[in-house]
């Protein structure tokens, strides 16, 4: 059974029962009042048949709640708007072929994890020869030239490198997102590239486990990749976009 119907609701025990599980803490000691508050919050989120199944005191005036409830919300299957594009993946051979014979150039990719972020594993998974998920990284593609600047790179150094290396693509990784640290970094880089007048010569792509595509596009990126991204997905997009730009 794959897509069953065109209106979709959560399923717990039966089709369309709308069953949902919820949990959160409250800045209140555990009491009858706090339990009531927890149930009210679930109610205000539009849940029905609310069952408060666990209420735990966390100490120091806090408490934690686990609830189940049902929702009437349903999603029209036909009207789902994809922000995450499911692009047809090209293969290694086809990518190199397109670059060599259609785009007719070797593509320079500059990659970096910017700001104070020191997480390199994600970007390396895309760039390093070793790759990710059984796929080779971009370094292994004869038609890509990869310059990996590593971690904790200030945006101005990325700009510098992009200019020096005559980059076709800039790939930035952002993993630390607490207090939206990544948004500041990403916007800053996009603005700097714009201000220096080289933004339009580049594909500007970011990635990381907690990046919201929508927001990334808003701050000026061409594309964003989330958790589980494979090198092939990135390479495919690059080829597609560069060919489109070249036309």
């Amino acid at each position: 059974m794959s897509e069953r119907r065109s209106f979709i609701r959560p399923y717990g025990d039966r089709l369309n029962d709308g069953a949902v599980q919820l949990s959160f803490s409250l800045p209140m000691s555990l009491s009858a009042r706090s339990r009531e508050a927890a149930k009210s919050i679930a109610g205000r989120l539009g849940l029905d048949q609310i069952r408060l199944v666990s209420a735990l005191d966390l100490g120091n005036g806090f408490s934690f709640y686990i609830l189940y409830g049902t929702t009437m919300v349903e999603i029209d299957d036909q009207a789902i708007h994809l922000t995450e594009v499911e692009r047809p993946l090209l293969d290694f051979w086809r990518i190199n072929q397109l670059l060599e014979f259609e785009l007719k150039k070797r593509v320079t990719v500059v990659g970096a994890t910017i700001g104070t972020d020191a997480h390199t594993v994600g970007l390396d998974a895309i760039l390093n020869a070793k790759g990710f998920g059984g796929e080779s990284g971009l370094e292994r593609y004869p038609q890509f030239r990869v310059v990996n600047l590593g971690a904790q790179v200030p945006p101005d150094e990325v700009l510098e490198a992009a200019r020096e290396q005559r980059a076709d693509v800039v790939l930035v990784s952002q993993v630390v997102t607490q207090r939206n640290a990544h948004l500041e970094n990403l916007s800053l880089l996009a603005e700097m590239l714009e201000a220096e007048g080289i933004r339009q010569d580049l594909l500007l792509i970011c990635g990381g486990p907690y990046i919201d595509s929508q927001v990334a596009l808003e701050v000026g990126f061409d594309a964003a990749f989330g958790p589980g991204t494979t090198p092939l997905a990135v390479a495919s997009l690059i080829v597609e976009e560069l060919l489109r730009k070249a036309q």
Partner: protein
Amino acid sequence: MRLPISSEQVRHCRKLAASIAQEVKAEISPLSTVSVERSLLRLVGIEGSNQESVPLVNCFIDQITGQRALEDGALYWLSNTILATGESPQGIAERVGAGSLDLVRLPRQPRRAIEDLCRQIVQDALVTLFGKQRQRREMEESLARAPSPWLYVIVATGNIYDDIEQAKAAAEQGADAVAVIRSTAQSLLDYVPEGITTEGFGGTFATGANYRLMRGALDEVSRRSNRYVRQVNYCSGLCMAEIAALGVLEGLDILVNDALYGILFRDLNMIRTMVDQHFSRYLLGLFDTIIVTGEDNLIKTIDAYEEYSIVLVSQFINEQLAKNAGMREERIGLGHAAELDPALQDSFLKELVQAQLVRQLFPRSPVKFMPPTRYKSGNIFFAHALDTLFNLVSVWTDQAIVLLGMPTEAIHTPYLQDRYLSLESALHVRRAAGSLGRELRFLPNGQGAARARQLLAKTEESLTRISEDGLWNSLASGAFSAIRRTRKGGRGYDGVFRKGQFYQNPFLSREIVRRARRETAAT
């Protein structure tokens, strides 16, 4: 990772249990029950119900009971009628159901002819069933073998169609066995409901039609995922024998079948239950079906640490009763459970010891280990942690069948995703800790070993007392979880009868069984 226990003591326990079982067998041999008789009718192919939705097998037995002719048994009257009317068993049953045929009024046919016909009918039925069994085993062998332990999950929506969707999902997620939980208290019904059912409370009715639908669904996933997924249901209650027949007819792989459960937890009559369990096990043994017993129930309401030995006592008795009914140890899945209070000091160690002890006492049994339920609360995260530890004990001590605990145990019958999360944890533990039992040893003088010895001593003591008092008196005196039952009390006693002089049941004949096997092998 063996516990240092005295094998002498183990042998003694087994001997005591054997004598308890032997006494029971002697008493029940001359008896049969309405449920056994209905099961015979089912086995020879009678199915369906009448216009008032009464199953035809019930109509048949009710009619002869009403005429005080039950003592000769179902097969006698069926054969007599066939000889008298030339009709088919199903045709006869339908006329009985419609009220247009009076079985006892027909002239009695020659005894010899009846006997011959009975044997013929039964032999034919057996050939068909052995044939089905062979096909099923062939299918199983054509698929990849499930790793050990088997991961067993339940579905319990009340609606067989939802059950099927969820069972298929569970099978794809890695379940090795799927049980459909029964609608609550089906044990108390003295008939098996008919047809496909979509309403139940806390579970789904066990019916032949529901069995068949689920079987088809599981066979489909089994083939698709190249892993034989076992179908489980409950063979207990007033229809124990009939459910066994249905299980055999519909190709179920495992049946939950406990000799004492109905007596203790459903207040069924003890004689009735003993007769029923004997024949049900005989049947299941014939078709090499696995049974699993329900010792988890024994420690659900008492102190599971102090009184744990009752589990072992019941296992020894269940084992011997099943062996007396002709089952081999490899098919007697004795049950036990991890129900210690998590607040107990060293509860993990204690569970480990108990699990290992059971494994060691019954080395050939496909023992079934059941997860924590009593001390679970609505805190699904902590429940998941407890279950993960349970999974570890299961894998480590090499249990054969593991019923997976659910994070939402204290909330609802499992949701689709609950089963996924349980399987995910169990699959991980099976992969991550598969060799643990081969790598570690218990210290011979640790508290673990002491606990094992203490449990075994207590078990021996209880078995000694029960064998002295006899099982009936022990059930009356509260030897099992402090529940007291009287010999003639409880539901279903009126369905027990002493077999009359014309009584026929060739299923019990070694000769017929041998012939049927030979005939099956030849085709």
